[in-house]
């Protein structure tokens, strides 16, 4: 067993059911 110099452990979950209709904000948001 080799000890590991860990910076990050992560379980990164995406819950698509709770997303708004479209992911990107696009140009309009930045205008």
């Amino acid at each position, binding site marked *: *067993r*080799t*000890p*590991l*110099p*860990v*910076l*990050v*452990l*992560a*379980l*990164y*979950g*995406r*819950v*698509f*059911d*709770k*997303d*708004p209709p*479209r*992911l*990107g*904000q*696009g*140009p309009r*948001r*930045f*205008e």
Partner: protein
Amino acid sequence: LDALTVAVYEHAVILPNKTETLVSQDKCPVPYEREYRFLDRAIKHSAKQRNAQMTVTPEDALYGWKFSRETISLYLKDIPAPQVNWITCQNTQRFGYTPVQQRLSCLAKDNSIYVVANIGDKKPCNASDRQCPPDGRYQYNTDVVFDSEGRLVARYHKYNLFAPEIQFDFPKDSESVTFETPFGKFGIFTCFDIFSHTPAVVVVDEFQVDSVLYPVAWYNTLPLLSAVPFHSAWARAMRVNLLAANTHNTSMHMTGSGIYAPEAVKVYHYDMETESGQLMLSELKSRPRNEPTYPAAVDWSAYARSVKPFLSEQSNFPGMIYFDELTFIELKRNTGNYTVCQKDLCCHLTYKMSEKRTDEVYALGAFDGLHTVEGQYYLQICTLLKCQISDLRTCGEPVGSAFTKLEEFSLSGTFATRYVFPQIILSGSQLAPERHYEVLRDGRLRSRS
């Protein structure tokens, strides 16, 4: 064919000065001439010297990205749908003057290799289309694939534009772009699309592709959104091959390309020290679903829902990761069990450190909420991370090195989704080799014993 050799090229694009003035048509080839030479050399080398059957090049690799809508328009041409069955290299004028498509097609044909590139598509429209932009054209960030005969076999319009891409339009509808080859079924999408159900999940779950082609211009944001850890985790969790070609630009933290199989990282490249590009190659199984090594599906919440939360007298505290506020708890000792919860998500950690350094602080964090900054997408995150300095207010800030070592760990969470991407990042932003950890079918990310 049971296997194929693929190449991914991380290209260090030279950005033009911010291009705000229009140039004449006869100067069009100039901005991408140098970039094309690099791609040409990498593709020829991968085909002739290394017998690759496909080379993937990055998003924005030919043009860069410092454009307005008007200045990029002169470099864009109409790219027809693959159904027209066009070998551009043989029939160069069929759809007008298309020098970039022609060169890519000939490169593919002359070297008998599939070529994947990111360029731009321009489609005229008029007032009868109520969504037609005022300048009378749609402009799309576009991936193209030419097969080994030089035929255009795929054209993909990026569906989820990243916020600064003001030079491009959103496609009205999503389309799942796939194509068959002698070495499996392929899908394709670009960069920010990976966060979205459409097209990323759809192309894998509904169209059952074997491999995904993935040109990106991805800037790394530690701790959770660095290209190599995130993309390799995506391939593992979605159980497909992923060929990720990133643009190389260290000033914008853009580096990190790789060839990822469901069961293992085949090769990856991460370089924040030089301004050079990198070609990498690997063999992949053509149809990973048919292999005995194909990983089983994971029930990501099975273990976490079956155990009682660990009790602690310590207080929780807030911390930010990329504009999201997590709930953290500090890991005080060399060994321990902790649970931290936010809304409906509880994260459990069991760990053993071989020697916890007094100047390094670690924390376990949970996030359950809608991310709303550069896009809107719902996240559930469990993470153990090293804080930037010993001040707890820095937990979640990017950090590059760690000296404390973990001997054992088990991380799990009560996720309400089957789309969970497991990452382990080591000191120096390196990936942990697979022999050191495993993902169990009950959803635990665990050190291997």
